[in-house]
C-alpha cells in the first residue's frame, strides 16, 4: 500500500509552472529522492507535501488521510531543513522535545523519547547544549533527531547534507540511510547532488523545469535514460547531433555513419556513455569503429578522461581505467575508438 500518494500535483505562479503535473505513489518505507538542477521544482514539491505551499491543483494523501488542505502543523511530516532551523534559544533536548510537547505528551513521557532520538543520532549527552555550541554536523543530527522524535508519518529531507563538508557528507549519508532503513521510515529527500541521490535512494525522480523527466531506479536512469536531459544529468554522456537517416543508421552533423537501434527517422541526438567506448584493439570487434584524434587527457586517479575528436563537429568523451603499464594516449595521438550498436541511445531532437 502506498504510504504517500501525490496525484497530479501542480503549482503555478502567474505564468510560471513551478511544478507541472507531478504524480507518484511512494511505498511504505521507501526512500525517494527528488533530483534536479536548481529551479526544477523539487523543493516546491517537498514544501507542498510539508504544507508550506498550497498547491494550485492536485491531491496529497498520507496513508488514508487527504492532507492537501491541512496546515503544516496537522500533517505529521518530519522535515529536516537545509539550514537545520534549530531553535537558537532552546537546548538540544528542548529542541528535540518540541514536537512531543506540541502533541501534548506529558513531560515524564517525553524524556525517554528525547533520549532515544538523541541516541539514534549519536548525540547522547548533548542534551543541555545550545545549537550555537555545536558543529554543523552535530546541528544536522539534532535537526534529524527532532524530526524523528515526533514519529512522523513521512520524513522529508531538504538538501540535508549541502551545508556539510565533503568528508562528513559521506558519513552522514550512510548514517541517514541506515537509520531510515532501521526505522522503516517513508522518506522523500530533495537534492541536486547526483552522487548523494544515487547512493541513498530506493527510487529517484528526475525533474527539470517543473516537469518529471523520469522516475526509476539508479540502474534504469543510468542505462535507459528517458530523454536527452536525463542522459546528460545522470552520469555523463557525450552527445552527437545529427539525424536518423533510416532504421538503424544515424548520420552525424560531421558526416559519420553510425549503426544504432533507433527506427524512427528525423533529427536526433545520439548519447554515448564514456565507459561504453572501446579503444584500440578492443575496438576491433565493435559495430561502430572510427579513427579519432586525442584532444585532451585528464588524469583522475583511477580513471583517465579523454576528449577525442571524430570530425570537425563531432567530439566525444571517453573514459579508460588507469592500468599500470597501459599505453596512455597523449594529445595529438590518432587512436581507434569503437562501440556496440546498442551503446548509443538516440533521442529525437527537442523542438
Amino acid at each position, binding site marked *: 500500500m502506498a504510504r504517500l500518494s501525490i496525484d497530479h500535483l501542480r503549482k503555478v505562479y502567474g505564468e510560471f509552472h513551478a511544478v507541472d503535473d507531478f504524480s507518484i505513489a511512494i511505498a511504505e518505507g521507501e526512500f525517494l529522492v527528488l533530483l534536479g538542477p536548481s529551479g526544477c521544482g523539487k523543493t516546491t514539491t517537498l514544501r507542498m507535501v510539508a504544507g508550506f505551499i498550497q498547491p494550485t491543483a492536485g491531491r496529497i494523501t498520507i496513508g488514508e488521510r487527504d492532507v492537501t488542505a491541512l496546515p503544516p502543523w496537522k500533517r505529521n511530516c518530519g522535515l529536516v*531543513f537545509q539550514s537545520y*532551523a534549530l531553535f537558537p534559544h532552546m537546548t538540544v533536548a528542548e529542541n528535540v522535545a518540541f*514536537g512531543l510537547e*506540541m502533541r501534548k505528551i506529558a513531560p515524564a513521557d517525553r524524556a525517554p523519547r528525547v533520549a532515544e532520538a538523541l541516541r539514534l543520532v549519536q548525540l547522547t549527552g548533548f542534551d543541555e547544549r545550545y545549537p550555537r555550541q555545536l558543529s554543523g554536523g552535530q546541528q544536522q543530527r539534532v535537526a534529524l533527531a527532532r*524530526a524523528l522524535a515526533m514519529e512522523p508519518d513521512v520524513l522529508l529531507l531538504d538538501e540535508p547534507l549541502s551545508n556539510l563538508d565533503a568528508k562528513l557528507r559521506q558519513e552522514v549519508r550512510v548514517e541517514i540511510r541506515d537509520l531510515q532503513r532501521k526505522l522503516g521510515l517513508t522518506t522523500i529527500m530533495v537534492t541536486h547532488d547526483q552522487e548523494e541521490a544515487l547512493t541513498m535512494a530506493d527510487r529517484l525522480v528526475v525533474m527539470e523545469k517543473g516537469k518529471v523527466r523520469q522516475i526509476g531506479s539508479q540502474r534504469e536512469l543510468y542505462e535507459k535514460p528517458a530523454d536527452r536531459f536525463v542522459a546528460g544529468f545522470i552520469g555523463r554522456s557525450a552527445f552527437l547531433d545529427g539525424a536518423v537517416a533510416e532504421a538503424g543508421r544515424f548520420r552525424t552533423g560531421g558526416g559519420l555513419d553510425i549503426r544504432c537501434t533507433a527506427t524512427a527517422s528525423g533529427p536526433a541526438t545520439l548519447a554515448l556513455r564514456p565507459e561504453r567506448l572501446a579503444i584500440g584493439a578492443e575496438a576491433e570487434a565493435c559495430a561502430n569503429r572510427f579513427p579519432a584524434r586525442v584532444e585532451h587527457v585528464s588524469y583522475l586517479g583511477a580513471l583517465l578522461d579523454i576528449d577525442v575528436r571524430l570530425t570537425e563537429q563531432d567530439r566525444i568523451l571517453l573514459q579508460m581505467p588507469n592500468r599500470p603499464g597501459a599505453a596512455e594516449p597523449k594529445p595529438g595521438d590518432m587512436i581507434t575508438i569503437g562501440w556496440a550498436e546498442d551503446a548509443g541511445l538516440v533521442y529525437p531532437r527537442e523542438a
Partner: protein
Amino acid sequence: MTAARLSLGRIALNGAATLSLGFILLPLIFVVWLAFFRQEIPSFPPEGYSLKWFQAAANNKPFVDGFLLSLQVGVLATLIGLVVGVPASLTLVRHRIVLGPAINTLLLLPLVMPGIVLGTSLYVFQIETEIATGLPVMGSLGGLVAAHSLVVIPWVVKLVTASLAGFDRTIEEAAQNLGAGPWTTFRRVTLPSIRPGLVAASLFGFVTSFGNLEMSLFLVGPGRTTLPIAILQYLEWKIDPTVAAASVIQIVLIGAAMIVTDRYVKLSRVV
C-alpha cells in the same frame, strides 16, 4: 614621518571625542554636584554639602504624585505601544501591504514631530472628541496614556523591525512542521528571538514617555501632574537644589534600569 602624522591624527581624534563627551556629560555632572550643595541659591563655590535636598524632594507632594503618575502613564503607554507596535512591525516586515512604507513612516512620525505641535494637535483633537461624544476625554488619564502611547510606538516599530530583519523565518516553519499552530509558533519561537528588540523598545519607550514635557503640558488635567511638569512648576517659583535632587534620583533610576537591561540584552547591539 607617517607614524608621527598618524599619532597626531590620533591625538586630534581623542581630543575631539573628549570635548564632545564633556559637552554631553558636563550638565549632568553639574546637576549631580548641585544636588549636594548646602545653600538654597546655587552659586559657586559651594558653601558646604548636604543631603537635605533629597529629603525635600522626597517630601514634596507634587514631586511624589508626579513621579507616581509618570510611572503609571509610562508603564501603560509602553504596554499599549508594544501591543500596537509589535503586530504592526510584523505585518510591515512580512507582508507587502498597500502603502506599507507610508504606514511605516506614519508610525515613526511622532518621534520627529515637535512636542509642542503634537501636544497642540492632540489638545484640539481631544476637545473635539469630548464635544462630539460627550465622554470626559480631556485631562483624563486615558487621554494622557493614549497620547504617550503615540511616542512609544515609534520606538517599538523601529527596534522590532530591526530585530525582525535578521530573523530566520525557517525556524517558524520548523515549529509549524513540529505541530505548533500560528499562535504557539509566535509565542514560543518568534517572540523569544526578538526579545532583545522588545526589551530595548520597552526601555526607550518608557524613558521617552517618562521624560515627556511639551506634549503632556497640553493634556494634563487638574490634580493630574506628571513629574516633568511638577518640576517645571516648581522652577517657576524656586531655584533651590530640590529639583537637582529629584533629577539625580531619575538619572540613577534610569541608569540602573539600563545597566540591568544591558546584562540580559546587549543594548548596543539593538540600538
